[in-house]
């Protein structure tokens, strides 16, 4: 199917997996948002606002935020200028990171002799849990072993400025377009955003604007938190409830407890 859809494969008589097309081989990065957030926190807390020394931050990470380091973690979670808030600090860190990647890969070639392209959808949801499990504590307040954020998404309360700000951040994070491979941005829409024609119209304009600003992908999930919590309590009543997990949909009640919790915790964009 891919070979049918990509220029060069038919002309060259070579499948995409043998290098028949112009592009399509690269590498996917894991933990992109964790990296951007962590670098942003270092910049904000250590350098710009001088709230702690680098050594103190390192000590906190080595201790997995335990003991007195809890205070620093609480401060970070409360006042960190995380990615997804259309904040020049974290936007700037994101752009610098992706531009650095672009510069690194610019002259490199993959096994087919073609340019590298990157993606941020590395496997499925399980892999974000997997890799998180083998990663130590990070400056963004993450504990050792916690899952990474999927793709270019934000959550866990770190995005506080509403969906337009999240969309603006994601649309602008990669000015050099190094991430032209599979990209995923998960967003949970509150049912209030879709409750009538007028709200639906505004939601459509919002998503359209995201794409016009440069967004590549969005995965919209439109289930209410109450429904999901109720489905956890009474799975028998919610057998047909389907949710978008990452690149696929599945029955909510058949997901693991951890997956269910993650979907419930995904960004909820509340209205007034």
């Amino acid at each position: 199917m891919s070979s049918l859809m990509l220029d060069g494969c038919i002309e060259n008589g070579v499948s995409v997996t043998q290098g028949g097309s112009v592009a399509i081989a690269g590498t996917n990065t894991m933990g992109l948002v964790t990296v951007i957030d962590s670098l942003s926190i270092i910049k904000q807390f250590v350098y710009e606002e001088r709230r702690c020394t680098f050594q103190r931050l390192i000590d906190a990470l080595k201790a997995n935020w335990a003991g007195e380091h809890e205070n620093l973690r609480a401060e970070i979670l409360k006042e960190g200028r995380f990615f997804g808030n259309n904040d020049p600090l974290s936007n700037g860190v994101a752009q610098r990171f992706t531009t650095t990647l672009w510069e690194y890969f610019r002259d490199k070639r993959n096994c087919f002799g073609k340019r590298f392209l990157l993606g941020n959808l590395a496997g499925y949801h399980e892999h974000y849990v997997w890799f998180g499990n083998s990663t130590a504590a990070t400056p963004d307040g993450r504990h050792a072993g916690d899952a990474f954020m999927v793709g270019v998404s934000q959550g866990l309360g770190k995005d506080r400025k509403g969906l337009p700000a999240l969309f603006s951040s994601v649309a602008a994070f990669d000015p050099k377009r190094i991430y032209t491979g599979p990209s995923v941005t998960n967003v949970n829409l509150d049912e209030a955003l879709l409750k009538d024609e007028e709200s639906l119209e505004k939601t459509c304009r919002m998503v359209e604007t995201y794409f016009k600003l440069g967004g590549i992908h969005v995965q919209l999930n439109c289930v209410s938190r109450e429904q999901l919590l109720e489905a956890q309590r009474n799975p028998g009543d919610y057998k047909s409830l389907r949710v978008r997990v990452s690149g696929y949909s599945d029955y909510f009640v058949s997901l693991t407890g951890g997956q269910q919790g993650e979907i419930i915790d995904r960004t909820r964009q509340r209205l007034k």
Partner: protein
Amino acid sequence: MIFDIIRNSFVDGPGIRTTVFFKGCNLRCVWCHNPEGQAFGRQRMFFKSKCQRCGKCTAACQTRMEEPCVLCGRCAAVCPHDACKISGIEATVDEIFAEVLPDKPFYDASGGGVTFSGGECMLQPDLLRDCLVRSKAEGLHTAVDTAGAVPWEAFEAVLPYTDLFLYDIKAIDPVLHKECTGVKNERILSNYARLLENGARIWVRVPVIPGRNDGAEQERIRAYLAAHAPERIDYLPEHRLGEGKRDALAEAVIPALMTSSPKFNR
């Protein structure tokens, strides 16, 4: 002084908007769902259900939790669980627009803009006018959400910069109006009529509160609005979102809760 800025509002006028909430109101509607918008000054709010009894507020308190609270705000600054909050910020126009401007592409795409609400934004005429003038300089559609219990001169001052008024009509019967809101409605209705005469665009909001202004009063309201028709009428059902906030404002005594409870250990 403002007490909130809500981004991505779908319910405060046309399109996608950001709404700025001014602190201070001269009504006391019994159903108010923004009670922290009523008083003009800063206030401490304590959300008991979020408290984890970590004791950080007590340790940070300037008066060591002995009343009266001096509103230094240290308890709110150190609370890791958003249980303690100080409502009310003296924001400058620049600070407000640092929040309003970034979403402009979304306003432009949806016919949205900025809404000034509260509380009663018309009671801070200087700040409101400065915000409206700045909005126009930035090419933003403006909406003013008001209960209308202010002198007509206040409307005159904002008319040149206001694209739309969101106007509350809570009751027509003057006795009922006073019972439900604490003020008479004569000035509210005369201002409304005058706005219509001036050709202002108005969207009327009518809260429908069972046991208060429902039943026959709704008939009176509809008859009045049929005779003085705005561009649009929204009947707003009652909701209870303000109750938690009312309790949080009333919670004056944190010390008894904090100092007598064991430290919460993870």
